[in-house]
């Protein structure tokens, strides 16, 4: 009898048990209350590999309910194999609706992009974070970086940016550009391109950053100031796509993928798959575009 009941429902709603979900939500609330601060959390094992979006799943599955509409992208694309796999899993575990349409989604999980289309206060965006500790590059020990954050001692970080400028003539940070949140904590925006970084600031949306392997959650609440680190005379710059047009739509002003063709030629296509689809249909969704200082 007991056995029969045991296998009737293989897993709890949303896979994770309720008490752990509650714990994760509490840690998220703490992270919202202290923008940019990395909150340690239990991070239970998931049936997908560590480093493949377990943190994102923790956040998504502890937030999601049957009325939610879920969208997931990987490197900007809804159709990426890992995004498909995670979408199927979330759908199977929750019975939620899924969508490719950015505007329709109530929860957007993403790996390394923010959609081009402006997100609203009805949406939550969950980032998959490989390395939550932005200071790891300048200080390898966790117990020291925690202390540095506590004391707002970011001298090593500033020096590394300065050294990069002296050596190479620019701040050579690609994706995952360091930002200061609410004038206090320096955090990683996860490896999103610089193109997306300005969209974190004073957005209408709640941003949840979850790193499963490293067991940390940090948040940027709506309407919070997020400043990329820069010097008075050396400014933060987004990727330049000067004179580059999308080979499918002919449009510009979006993050582009560089595609090499069999004959050695090179072309560009808009990275955000849903944005591209909407352009093809004729409308251009609202965007927040950042203009590089000249």
């Amino acid at each position, binding site marked *: 009898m007991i056995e029969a009941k045991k296998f009737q429902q293989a897993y709890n709603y949303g896979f994770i048990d309720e008490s752990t979900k509650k714990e994760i939500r509490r840690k998220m609330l703490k992270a919202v209350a202290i923008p940019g601060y990395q909150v*340690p959390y239990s991070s*239970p094992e998931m049936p997908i590999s560590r480093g493949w979006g377990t943190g994102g799943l923790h956040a998504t599955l502890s937030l999601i309910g049957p009325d939610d509409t879920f969208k997931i992208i990987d490197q900007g*694309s809804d159709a990426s194999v890992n995004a498909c796999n995670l979408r199927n899993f979330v759908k199977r575990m929750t019975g939620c609706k899924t969508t490719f349409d950015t505007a329709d989604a109530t929860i957007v999980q993403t790996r390394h992009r923010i959609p081009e289309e402006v997100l609203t206060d009805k949406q939550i965006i969950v980032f998959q974070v*490989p390395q939550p500790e932005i200071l790891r*590059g300048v200080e390898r020990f966790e117990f020291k970086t925690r202390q540095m954050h506590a004391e707002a001692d970011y001298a090593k970080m500033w020096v590394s940016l300065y050294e990069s400028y002296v050596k190479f003539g620019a701040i050579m940070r690609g*994706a995952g550009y360091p930002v200061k949140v609410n004038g206090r904590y320096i955090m990683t925006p996860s490896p999103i391109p610089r193109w997306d970084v300005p969209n974190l600031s004073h957005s209408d949306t709640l941003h949840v950053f979850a790193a499963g392997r490293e067991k940390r959650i940090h948040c940027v609440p709506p309407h919070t100031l997020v400043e990329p680190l820069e010097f008075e005379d050396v400014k933060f710059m987004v990727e*330049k796509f000067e004179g580059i047009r999308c080979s499918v739509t002919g449009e510009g002003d979006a*993050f582009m993928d560089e595609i090499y063709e069999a004959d050695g030629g090179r072309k560009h296509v808009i990275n955000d798959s849903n944005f591209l689809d909407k352009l093809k249909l004729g409308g251009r969704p609202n965007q927040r575009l950042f203009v590089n200082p000249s």
Partner: protein
Amino acid sequence: MGYVAIKGGEDAIDNASRLVEYERLKSESPPLTIEQVKTQFRAGIDRIMGEGSLYAPEHAALALKQVEGCTLEGAFMLRAYRATLKRSYYSTILDTRSMRVERRISSAFREIPGGQILGPTRDYTVRLLNTDLASETFGSVKSFLEDIDSELQLSDEEAPRSFCKVVDMLKEQGILRPVDEDEEEEKRRVVDVTREAIKFPAPRSAALQMLARAETGGIAALAYSSMRGFGSAHPTIGELRVGHVGVSVRDRRGRSRYIGRIRVTECEIVSKLKQKGKSSVPYMSLGYGLCFGHNETKAIGMGILDRSMRVADEHPANSQEFVLYHTEGIESYGFTNHLKLPHYVTFQSGLDNLRNAMKRRDEEDRNAGAKKPKTMLNTQSQELADASPELL
């Protein structure tokens, strides 16, 4: 666009998983039963139960069968399954003094009370392929078992229920001191690393839990490093024992309830502790290892690392953070393999930096009117690549 933006992502996943199942079955050899895997791949089962941190031989056998024998993947499946199970009780402290010992050795003394018991081990066999196994039959298995049975001389004497511990003798003499006699309350707290993210410096209970769940190969590598040259001590095995211990929980009314037994390997390493003051007398300190199943390499390595992590020194095995984070098999396995995920957005962002830097350099060269040799530019590119480590 390769394997990314194809709209057939879902079909591709589906076909890939069918194809890997096909690989498992295509030879049409007789299917392995769970019983066969459980009983004949004892070492593999024990290993993944330990690394998966779930004592469940049937589930481990199923996992090992499903993943075609890969211990990393097998341990991962058990961990994922474990995470879905309700946590009803914490067991009371295991009493390894009352272990039903199958094997017990000490390399610190020639003879020990209760005797050295070699037990089941391949230690003193020559590692030659046994070609007879290629033609093993039910008959040959049966006659082997009958031989064993006929040689057994059952006596009425009761087997010893427990063996005293070698380390207890050293403790009585004051040569070996307890590890945490002078540690404060927080460090003695028993934490559950699966419910609470580890923080450093971690209490010993957390460190030992992490090591007990760590990957055997990772443990062996770091323990070996500390013995070979990146560490000081050559440790001595005070006692290594393998056997079954009973597990009990306390019910709501506070009564102890026996819930079953598990096989474990326990290792106690003794080595001299460096003294800070000149005048103080040196003493021995303990390194402790305990893991599920029969896995001596892991228990010994664990003992060495438990010991080395408590010594302040510059070597990798002396750093708690270094050891605990990097021996965690499920995490290192996952992250190493995540490199197979597409990274073209992050890569593009890095490319943008490199191109801008090259452009700046070309402009500088043009302005200076000087032509620098091309090799210089190449070196510079390498440096630039090193400067963009965030391509995660």
